[in-house]
């Protein structure tokens, strides 16, 4: 005499649904596991799909560079170089770097959000090259960075920027910026695996980015700075990047700054890539 009446039988998915599920399960096709490049590009595709569905993501890469370029050109142009036209020749390569580095910050907060939503649990449970989800995310970001660079360059041309290196010089400079921001991205991926909320990832990122960009040769020639600040600017990798981008876009020899930029990029990947993957094993 069981008086419990909570049992409800059947009443679920239609029987043909179960049959179709059985059929789907029966096709036990196991494709060849794809290589690291293929899975990374697939995750890059995911990033592009996200841009398609959430186009608001492109707001920052278009508005930031326009705002920075206009603000700093007209704020400092007259005072620092006598005219905005002269100043923009000096400033524009630097402001491209500044714009992209500011946007790299979102890599960390995006990853933190993904981790919280559990979607990375699925990616981490797949039999694929471990870093590919992160590499793909950074590749997707490279598309956003390219948009930012293009917007800045076009606005610069309108304002009178005339780079001596021509279009070829611009492409080499842009490639350098993309390489460095891809490398810097691993700092943010590590931070977002270390810190628990996207707010704190954002806060710490600002703390790193502000001295890196403003404590550099982006806005002014370091020769007028006090010695201690010059020393910092000298070792700041962003300064090397800006120097080499300025040189290749201006059509002159970048000297030691070019290999230094590449060495810095490799070192960032080696150190923060390794730290990221170490945290990624136990990510939550």
């Amino acid at each position, binding site marked *: *005499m069981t008086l419990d009446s909570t049992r409800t039988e059947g009443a679920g998915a239609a029987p043909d*649904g179960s049959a179709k*599920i059985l059929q789907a399960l029966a096709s036990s096709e*196991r494709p060849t*596991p794809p290589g690291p490049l293929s899975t990374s590009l697939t995750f890059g595709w995911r990033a592009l*799909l996200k841009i398609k*569905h959430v186009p608001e993501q492109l707001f920052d890469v278009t508005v930031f560079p326009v705002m920075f370029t206009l603000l700093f050109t007209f704020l400092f142009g007259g005072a620092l170089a006598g005219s905005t036209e002269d100043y923009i020749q000096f400033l524009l390569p630097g402001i491209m770097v500044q714009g992209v580095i500011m946007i790299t910050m979102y890599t960390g907060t995006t990853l933190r959000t993904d981790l919280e939503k559990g979607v990375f*649990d699925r990616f981490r449970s*797949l*039999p694929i090259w471990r870093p590919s989800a992160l590499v793909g995310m950074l590749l997707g970001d490279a598309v956003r960075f390219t948009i930012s660079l293009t917007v800045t360059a076009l606005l610069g041309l309108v304002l009178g920027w005339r780079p001596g290196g021509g279009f070829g010089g611009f492409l080499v400079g842009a490639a350098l910026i993309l390489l460095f921001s891809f490398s810097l991205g691993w700092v943010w991926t590590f931070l977002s695996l270390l810190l628990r909320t996207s707010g704190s990832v954002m806060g710490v990122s600002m703390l790193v980015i502000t001295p890196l960009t403003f404590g550099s040769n982006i806005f002014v020639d370091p020769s007028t700075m006090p010695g201690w600040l010059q020393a910092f600017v000298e070792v700041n990798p962003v300064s090397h990047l800006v120097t080499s981008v300025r040189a290749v876009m201006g059509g002159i020899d970048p000297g030691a700054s070019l290999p230094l930029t590449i060495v810095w990029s490799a070192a960032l990947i080696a150190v923060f890539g390794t730290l990221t993957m170490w945290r990624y094993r136990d990510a939550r």
Partner: protein
Amino acid sequence: MNDLAIETHGLVKVFGSNRAVDGVDLAIPRGGVHGFLGPNGAGKTTTIRVLATLARPDGGTARVLGRDVVTEANEVRQRVSLTGQFASVDEDLTGRENLRLIGRLFGHRGAAARRRADELLDAFGLGDAGDRQVKKYSGGMRRRIDIAASIVVTPELLFLDEPTTGLDPRSRNEVWDIVRAMVSSGTTVLLTTQYLDEADQLADRISVIDRGKVIAEGTSTELKASVGSGSLHVRVMDRVDREAARAILERELAVDVREEADPNALSANVDEQGRVTRALSALDDARIPLAQFSLGQPTLDEVFLSLTGHPAEETTETEVDAA
């Protein structure tokens, strides 16, 4: 190689000072559904995360389908799938895009990935919703797309972490039907749940987990036998009668009768249903009017009370953190 789906010895996972998994030994055969039953914070999810290679154990060993979860993690990942407590597909993408993404990550070429996605959407009744973003799905649709994502390439072992938490009864039945279909096709399912009812419906064997330890294991019948075959709930019309009713019930049932938080309610675990009939007549003879009475299977709380001596506790901070 052996024929165990899961084999662990002294498995430990520590978060700070909290031993979320504290020496778990399991030997789960292939085939069928094995249930992990326990309250929030018992360590079910953490155990699953270790077994699915998402978290590294701090002690002990775990082999899944004969492979070590630490040293042969990639081998394990090729054979298992995980469906989490929270939908672990990308909410910004459409259902079809999510399935294509996973298909491509497993090595399906563009057209094959698309075909597989269409087949699964159709089988799970999501054909019409395939091009909508997952964030716009209902709870039941979301759980279905999540399970579909787990079988893009058919796994040998599927971890289902609280698949029906937060679902309405209809969607819950749909998920149960899907699980039954998968089992009949030969997939082993490890299911965690807070509901005895769910474990009862689906699981062949159940491990009861509490505070990071397995405290009991057996079929649902065996577990229920440990707390008596049934659970009697009585609610008296007038609360002043409760003490008298309790005395009568204890005499007639010959077991302990508990006073519930509700000042009118009593409950008891009973073995013999014949005694229940007599006990209810005795209450009638004593002219103690009842508001209601019921005899049903023991609840999770009662299983816990009996097995652990403490009631199933609610969520602890640390497990939420770990989840």
